[in-house]
């Protein structure tokens, strides 16, 4: 008899006695048939096959990377470049005048279909005060006093161009390089290409703050036709950071360990019987799940951070906020997580209630300004900025003309918007591109979303035309059939 068979036999005898004591011999023969069958089925054991492909195992890039990790601060709704970074004194002069026709040629605007009378729309100069900062004299408005202090650490792109003027399509364009649904998001492509250094956390993490989730939801961090392992994992600010992370009531960590041990032992038995390497992957997945149960709460627990750090991000105790998410982003980078995306709503300042270009813009700026600057400084201080690419921006910019709702706001504008990048091989203290004097379009160094993607991949050591996945007969890329690395942005 093998040791296992002895255990079973012993258990069986013990039970038999228990039941016999209560019921004499009633029913006690039931199990023997099953026992015999079970015993015959053994003897198939083979040596275990080594673990199968791990989707998140770190992989080598195409060439030496400048950045190892990415933090994408997604300002959902489309921040107004004209109130923040793109200073337009000419536009101010022409406030309330009609738009010169030459500026409208070939442009599309949301809320303005063929029935819309564009002659009624008037130009709108900003009400915000601007000043120049840093060694390059970068213009930053009064809305972002903290960001103004880090302009020497960042590259400001004034000419970001996207192709669609509505939120959901534009958001997936920014995230997947296509306005069509079904494509993988940037984070999915990056972990598909590079895996992740973290072995106890997902390789692509999404954090959210603001009054509502980003439009389109999970589509923004989808894996599309790539394996689902590359999908972004949302971490929540409150409750379980990862869905189903906590054990059910009554299941302690020790109990969870015992159950997982039993599951994995049984899975290994079955692996021997079938020789299927997928079972090894599942065993590894359960081990990682168990590690995540410890590492994710540990990640979220910021009580070990100094008061000075918490203050620098403007974090209030126990409050979910963009600031807290920025700090978590740094902690995720420290743990080797490859791609971190923060969404903050709401930047959709049309002028309606809750979306005014005045106090609502003030509010959202206040929510993000200090934490963004703190993140850059914190990463820099800890020597992490060199390896970490930080990207700030939304799905599009806003129009130079006003839009009358409850108050005057601005509409969606896909021809130019502002984005800034820092760290990870990007130039520090650099301003890229210029827009026309009214802010309708770029006049030099336009950066299309595809170019942005190509550049981000390049900084990660990936040649964007070579990161492909074949689906429906075509080799798909994040950059579709376009995209040029913007070398001017690279230090």
């Amino acid at each position: 008899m093998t040791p296992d068979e002895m255990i079973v036999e012993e258990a069986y005898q013990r039970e038999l006695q228990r039941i016999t004591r209560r019921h004499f011999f009633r029913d006690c023969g039931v199990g023997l048939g099953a026992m015999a069958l079970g015993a015959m089925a053994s003897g198939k054991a083979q040596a275990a096959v080594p673990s199968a492909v791990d989707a998140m195992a770190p992989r080598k890039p195409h060439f030496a990377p400048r950045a190892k990790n990415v933090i994408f601060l997604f300002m959902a709704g489309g921040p107004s470049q004209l109130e923040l970074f793109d200073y337009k004194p000419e536009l101010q002069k022409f406030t309330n005048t009609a738009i010169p026709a030459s500026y409208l040629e070939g442009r599309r605007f949301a809320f303005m279909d063929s029935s819309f009378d564009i002659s009624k729309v008037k130009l709108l100069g900003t009400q915000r005060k601007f000043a120049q900062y840093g060694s390059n004299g970068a213009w930053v408005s009064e809305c972002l006093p903290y960001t103004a202090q880090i302009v020497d650490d960042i590259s400001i792109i004034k000419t970001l161009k996207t192709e669609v003027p509505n939120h959901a399509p534009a958001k997936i364009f920014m995230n997947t390089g296509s306005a069509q649904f079904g494509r993988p998001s940037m984070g999915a492509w990056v972990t598909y290409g590079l895996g992740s250094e973290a072995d106890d956390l997902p390789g692509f993490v999404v954090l959210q703050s603001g009054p509502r989730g980003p439009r389109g939801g999970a589509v923004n961090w989808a894996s599309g036709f790539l394996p689902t392992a590359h999908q972004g994992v949302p971490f929540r600010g409150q409750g379980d950071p990862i869905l189903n992370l906590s054990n059910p009531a009554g299941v302690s960590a020790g109990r969870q360990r015992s159950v997982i041990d039993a599951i994995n032992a049984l899975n290994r038995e079955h692996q021997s019987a079938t020789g299927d390497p997928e079972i090894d992957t599942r065993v590894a997945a359960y081990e990682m799940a168990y590690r995540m149960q410890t590492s994710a709460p540990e990640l979220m627990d910021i009580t070990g951070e100094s008061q000075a750090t918490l203050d620098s991000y403007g974090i209030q105790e126990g409050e979910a906020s963009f600031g807290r998410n920025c700090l978590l982003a740094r902690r995720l980078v420290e743990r080797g997580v490859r791609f971190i995306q923060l969404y903050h709503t709401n930047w959709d300042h049309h002028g309606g209630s809750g979306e005014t270009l005045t106090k609502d813009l003030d509010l959202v700026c206040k929510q993000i300004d200090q934490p963004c600057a703190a993140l850059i400084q914190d990463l820099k201080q800890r020597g992490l900025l060199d390896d970490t690419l930080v990207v700030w921006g939304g799905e599009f910019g806003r129009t130079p003309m006003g839009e009358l709702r409850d108050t005057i706001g601005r509409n969606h504008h896909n021809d130019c918007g502002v984005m800034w990048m820092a760290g990870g091989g990007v130039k520090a203290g650099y301003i890229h591109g210029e827009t026309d004097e009214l802010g309708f379009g770029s006049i030099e160094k336009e950066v299309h979303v595809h170019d942005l993607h190509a550049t981000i991949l390049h900084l990660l050591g990936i040649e964007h035309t070579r990161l492909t996945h074949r689906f429906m007969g075509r080799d798909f890329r994040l950059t579709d059939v376009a995209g040029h690395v913007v070398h001017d942005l690279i230090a």
Partner: protein
Amino acid sequence: MSIPGTKFGQIRRALRACGAGFPAIVLAFAAHADDAPAPSFNYEVRPILSENCFTCHGPDAKARKAKLRLDLEEASRDAIVPGDHAASALWERVTTHDADDLMPPPETGKSLTADQVDVLRRWIDAGAPYQKHWSFIPPARPVVPSVSDAAWARTPIDNFILARLDAMGVAPAPDAEKATLLRRVHLDLTGLPPTPEERAAFLADESPEAYEKVVDRLLASPHFGERWARHWLDAARYADSNGYSIDSPRSIWPYRDYVIDAFNSDKPFDQFVIEQVAGDLLPDATREQRIATGFHRNTMINEEGGVDQEEFRMEAVADRVNTTGTVFLGLTMSCARCHDHKYDPLSQHDYFSLFAFLNNDDDVTLPLPTPKEQEKLDKANAEIKAIQAELATYVAEARAKTIPAWEKALTLEQLRAFAPEDQATLLSAPDARDDAQTARVEALWKAQDDHIVKKNKRVDFLEKTSDRFTTTLVLAARKQPRDTFLLIQGDYTRPDEKLLPGVPEVLNDLPADAGASRLDLAQWLVSPQNPLLARVTVNRFWQRFFGKGIVETENDFGSQGLLPTHPELLDWLAVEFRENGWQVKPLLKQIVMSSVYRQASAAREDLRDVDPNNQYLARQNRIRLDAEIIRDAALAASGALDPAIGGPVVYPPQPAGVTSLGQRDRGWPVSKGGDRFRRGIYTAFWRGTPYYALTVFDAPNAQEACTRRIRSNTPLQALTLLNDEAFFELAEELGKHLAADTDTPVVDRIADAFLRCLARTPTPAETAILVKLHDTQRASFKETPADATAILGEEVGESAADDAAWVMVARAMLNLDEFVTRE
């Protein structure tokens, strides 16, 4: 020709003898001797040209370089001299050492291997013959090959499979254990595991028909339709919300039930296609036929403020064109929306001609009151009528006395509360008023009369509540069709040439008498001349049983798709399917009755080098269950399943906060009673914030047609099975069942758990693992009784520690790889 005495020669002889085509085998063993045979254009040459040349020298006129086109025989002669490779520019350009001239250009990152260059050389020397792309040639019934082991071949399918294995010198795997086969066929046909009783009956049945009886029982089960509908719903991009950012709920589940019914009643597949594409246009269209057109209403709706409605209507039509291409034709039509297809002979003109068929509808909502709802509606209408009659009398009577009295009794203060013009009216002399003024006074009185206000409130209530009946989304053809234009770059703002409805030129023609309606399109799709529909459909059925199709790229039968591993089998199945009146159940029965299906799935050391990906099926594949089926299996194993079929969506538990991930938190009202334990197909699916346990196990996002799911294997799946309330409560159910059986020894109860979850008995090693888990957990719960209480809820008795320990055992069972896998 063949080389005597070599392995290659033997294989070729074997292939010729059995009638199997040469394709993939030839590729695997091709020799380079000069006397090697002319390569097959479809199987060897076209893949090389398609991958490396067609982007610039293919169907897309705008992208074409040097005016050279290699996808057509005649045009290719600009670069090919048949019979003389040395004189052919093509050969020269792919072999030159001059980097400026080399093709494909080095900057494309593409290059030809020496083998590929050699294939081209031999092909040119043999006259460079072209063939129509394989999938565009209508299938003809092939001869069933003879095989080395006639006894193994239970069905003609097996002859095709074994002929290929014979050629490779590989023997098929033995049949799976009876119990394994039972669980496999249960899960494949109905998505539910066998009960221990069904297993015992099958094992006890030693008759030769035992298995066939099971298959027939499963095909007749109403759960068959639920299982097979789900595959179709993936392709139909079915969901219960509108998508995009607002993602409002929609009611279209009657379409889902239509699909379940169609599979259960074995509706002929051609009829199924016609009804979904154009059911509303059939003569005397029934309610069901109209519901069927929900197929193309599964497009998303953008409700975001400020969008141009026309843009997103066009998006939806484009989705219908793309879906038509993917689902019925296995073609990547979507590639031809902005430009001519880069690889396949599908032009932008073809795209928008197809578009013109689908551009003439209104999206309407079909009311579908159930008999009960109709009764309620009738009752409400009757009551409303009665109230209105009563009020008419009441007002008529009031005109003489009550209204004048009311007017007189108005105080100055009351009068001032009215609008100035009303004040004037009220102050005027009653007999000096015109009709409008009289009516106005009456209206003012009505607005304050308690009786009337009360009755009107009742009418409002009845109107609001009685029209809450079921609806579904359908297509309705417009009387006046829209004009359709070829759109430059697919941009809806850039119309070009006006087009009439038409079908891709490369496929079968529309009949001469065909009109321009969706019904004409539907009939063209199912016509016997269509080379694709039957092939594409049987291939997808096949992939459900083996994990991948005979054509692995099940959504691309074009030149970039993979070639069929068993082309004759594919054609045989396609012809069989069509000639048997498109009946699905007999086709599926043929497949599950075959020996190839019944094989054991364990890995085979001897295949590791010969066929590492098991393309030729010398064994079955282990396949992880689909998301919904994992839930269904847990429901069944735990005994909690509510087997009701059809009806509105349900809301099983899911982690808090999932619905808050979208723009609007729609909430998640967890279903009570039996609805909490319904099969996964009934779970409400929100496109923006999908049910978590479904997406974590790779359910598609319903944004476009999905014809094959990815199968991933992740830590988040582990956390879901371990901790998600929807699964933990089923572990509790199963645990309580095991715990209650106190008269049975622990090891036998473990065996019972194995039977319920895996349809097999455990090995001693497996039993030992669970005995240990049970014993240590029982001891631990004794020490921390609060844990046991937390797990068991209020039903804690003396046996709490033991009961809770069984929940942990049940939890382990529901987490096993084998539990979520079809062996």
